[in-house]
């Protein structure tokens, strides 16, 4: 839909706009049609009764009504789709089929998880070769990072639209990757 007012959340039917403009302005085409009809009448020499012009709009009124009805149904479908699909995806982080942006995001997410899992294997190998004290300190820090990400995700589950939590989650995931990479690469000096 193109009208900006449909982007806000509507919780009750009576919150819907009372008058909804059609997706495009129908009047120019109608005006052209009237003018053409009048020209035809003039050319055929047919005399017009007073008030006839007032009655003529009646033929396009149903078209206008149909357009408004279609627009209203479209808004309803749109709102229904938004409320039934988008909110759960923010919570669970799962993809919805049919939306290319969501599919791409899911692919990115899968790729991220794959890279992270591979990195974790290397990090665990690296941790095994560390002295016990260092291993304990570093492992505790990595657990802290993971726990903080879980905490943010849990908070986001209750408040999915919170911009602060979204930002913290993104930054924490980036920080975790940086820390894992630093630990993995920490053995490179030994070669």
């Amino acid at each position, binding site marked *: 839909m193109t009208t900006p007012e449909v982007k806000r959340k509507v919780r009750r039917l009576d919150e819907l706009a009372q008058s909804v403009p059609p997706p495009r302005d129908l009047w120019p085409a109608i005006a052209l049609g009237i003018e053409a009809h009048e020209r035809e009448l003039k050319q055929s020499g047919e005399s017009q009764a007073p008030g006839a012009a007032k009655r003529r709009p009646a033929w396009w009124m149903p078209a206008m009504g149909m357009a408004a009805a279609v627009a209203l149904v479209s808004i309803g479908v749109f709102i229904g789709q938004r409320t039934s699909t988008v909110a759960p995806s923010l919570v669970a982080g799962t993809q919805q089929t049919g939306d290319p942006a969501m599919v791409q995001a899911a692919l990115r997410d899968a790729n991220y998880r794959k890279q992270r899992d591979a990195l974790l294997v290397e990090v665990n190998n690296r941790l095994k*070769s*560390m*002295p016990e004290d*260092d291993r304990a*300190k*570093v492992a*505790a*820090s*990595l657990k*802290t*990072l993971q726990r*903080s990400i879980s*905490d*943010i995700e849990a*908070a986001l589950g209750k*408040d999915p639209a*919170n911009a*602060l*939590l979204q*930002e*913290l989650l993104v*930054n*924490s995931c980036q*920080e975790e990757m*940086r*820390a894992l990479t*630093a*630990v993995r690469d*920490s*053995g*490179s*000096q*030994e*070669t």
Partner: protein
Amino acid sequence: MSEFRFKKLALLIACALPAGAPMTAMADSDSVDRKVAAEANGEVVITNVSGTVDVRGWDRNEVQVTGTLGSGVERVDVDSSGGRTVVKVVLPHRGAHDGDADIEVQVPKNSSIDVSAVSADVSSRGVLGAQRLKSVSGEVTADISGNDSNVSSVSGDVTVRGVGKPDSLRVSSVSGSLDVTNFGGKLEVVTVSGDARVSASEATEIRGRTTSGNLELRGKLSKDARVDVEGVSGDLLLHLAAPGPLGLELESFSGDIEGCLAKGVERVSKYGPGVRLSQRNVENGPRIRAKTLSGDIDVCDK
């Protein structure tokens, strides 16, 4: 016959003992003393697994390596070509953690240095070029004056002193503590669980991030300085004086905002958690942006 054999054996042992003793001593503790010509503004790369690395800037266009080597150390390579000098402590095989080497490396004072260590402690003093100092579990102590310097550790503590106000510096650790003093310019400080303390002197930009460690920023900001810090469960202490009024944009999901500037703190939502403090009445001038999940924010301009 048996008496003759016994005397011969005793003689052999007596001869062998004095010869063997110095060899053992050499293997236990050897020393290194190498000197090569180097460019005044060149790069010096130093690698040592364990022990210590002390880098000192001096006025000569030479790199000198001195120190003692443990029994597990095979040799120390010192090569210089094309403005790049490489000092590498070589261990006989991968993973030989008993190979301590305590080395002091004198470098031309305008050199840039790149030091990598595993458990070795690293220190530097008197070096004016960029410094990249990295240790896994060793402590890093450095006087930094060069631009684009980077000091990092995994579990070791880091202490950095700004000398001559370097333009940009990044200091990071996973579980070690960070201590940065007398810093002016652009600073990025990142820690996961270690605490970080920064004493700023006319800082122009500070970016900080902590997960569970506490982050303290004290000192002075320059005109138009930008501070952008973030914590998850760690507390943020921001006691920063500025030449003009501070613009503030602070928010915490479940922590508190306090301190002498914490006037006008409001709830983010009537029904949910979260507090924020926004003072955007300052068009120009220094600004602080800080956010946490559960950590507290203490903000003051004194």
